């Protein structure tokens, strides 16, 4: 069972602000979701999944990158071809 305190700390780590009065509702939802996993655990066919599907690779071959205009298209703010972000450190 997940507690309200755990929900609060997960919200903080996920950088999502939630109100105190919303905590109860989210806690109920978290627990409901986790209960589905208990259900899944009881399904036999789930087993180990595709244990044979390993080693999926790509060759070390250069592919074209995006044009810089496209890269910057969604950036809220830019300087030269940098993306401008909040000051950190």
């Amino acid at each position: 069972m997940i507690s309200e305190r755990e929900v609060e700390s997960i919200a903080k780590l996920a950088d999502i602000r939630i109100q105190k009065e919303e905590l109860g509702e989210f806690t109920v939802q978290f627990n409901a979701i986790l209960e589905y996993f208990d259900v899944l655990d009881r399904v036999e066919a789930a087993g180990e999944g595709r244990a044979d599907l390993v080693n999926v690779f790509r060759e070390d071959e250069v592919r074209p990158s995006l044009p810089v205009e496209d890269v910057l298209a969604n950036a809220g703010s830019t300087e030269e071809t940098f993306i401008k972000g909040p000051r950190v450190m």
Partner: protein
Amino acid sequence: MKVIIGLEIHCQLNTDTKLFCGCSTDYRDDPPNTHVCPVCLALPGALPRLNTKAVEYALRVAKALNLEVAEECEFSRKNYFYPDLPKGYQITQYDRPLAERGVVEIEADDGTPKEVRITRIHLEEDPGRLVHRSGRDRAGYSLVDYNRSGIPLIEIVTEPDLRSPKEARRFLNKLRNTLEYLEVFDGEREGAIRVDANISLVGHNRVECKNISSYKGVEKALTFEITRQKNQIARGHEITRETRHFNEGRGITMSSRSKEEETDYRYFPEPDLRPLRVRDWLDDITLPELPDARKARFVAQYGISHNHARTLTGDMKLANFYEKVAGDDPVLAATWVADTLLGELNYRDMKIDRVPPAHFADLLALVRVDAITDRSGVDALRTMLDEGAAGEEMELPSAVVDRFGLRKAAGDEFDEVAAQVVEAHPDAVADYHNGKGGALNFLVGQAMRETRGRADARDLGRRIKELLENKEA
């Protein structure tokens, strides 16, 4: 007070493309954000595809450092928010790394061999690069360049087996050298290596110094930190368990803003990538001759001293260069490369790959057949390197020697100069016959000046002495 140091070293693997996408890693002279794609920019729906070369390179390192490769390993997500991390998580390896438990041998401070245990090696992607510009209007911003985002790294973690900053430096040199011999790493690339160091004094709390980005920086940061911790203890303060950042410019470590409690990264297996079963790849990996083996071979094959062999094999390019010029007189070549050339290169801040081996071999040939004196040899070398440093084409040393007339004076010319000097200084000649020891040196000095260094002092001395003895007779 016993010092305990453990290192976490992040090294860039020199693949052509990034770890999970086909963007080129060679962004050196390109503007920011020109080597990015939906994957390394974390656009919705983009999926990572693992670079097989990066895995192979990491395995080479694991083999060379004697690690046990896991039968199966996998990638995990490390979740945190920072502007240089577009996905909101870094793909790394957590509880199932590629390889564990290895060992590297170095020289301890007392010169004895010492084993440093390697805890693990894992693969991970580098975040982007942040630039902080100063200036009032920019004070509230960082600039982000994602060209580095997704560059393949290996993280090598050691056990806390190092006992001094010098040992740490030697370990790093050995590691760098080994990685270069394996041809998986280019230590000269910007950002090629980044070190986090854990350091404590026995019986006290441990401090982590993050983000040291040069070899010299590691020794400096550790030395600073040991002094700081000793002073704290001497003043009766306990050491705070914390993370500190090394300020390279000022040579000091500074406490990072309070991140006292362990950050919760909520690691979980990366669902977009399949596990790896690559242990049997080791069978196909043939390791090249590594530094220690090459050093031993240099001593055995070329008959050079241990010190010379260590210097020459301490850098793969230097060792390759030496083998190209060793020729008929490897001992002479070792002396000239290790004792003369290296110093001249350092003085000019030049790299060994700027020196054409054929030019240097030409110089060695002149010295070897005694066509020039050592001093003229150094002069010719300096002229050649100065031309190179100025961006000009380097002249062959034999051409320099001819241009400046540096060839050793022939026998006749010797005799002539010796005779002239003896003739011109009757006082010194008299002094010599009166048993004044300095007189001969004075005459030789005069003769050396006449020949402008083209003659051996010893040869001239012998010739002048003959003349003086004959004169008396």
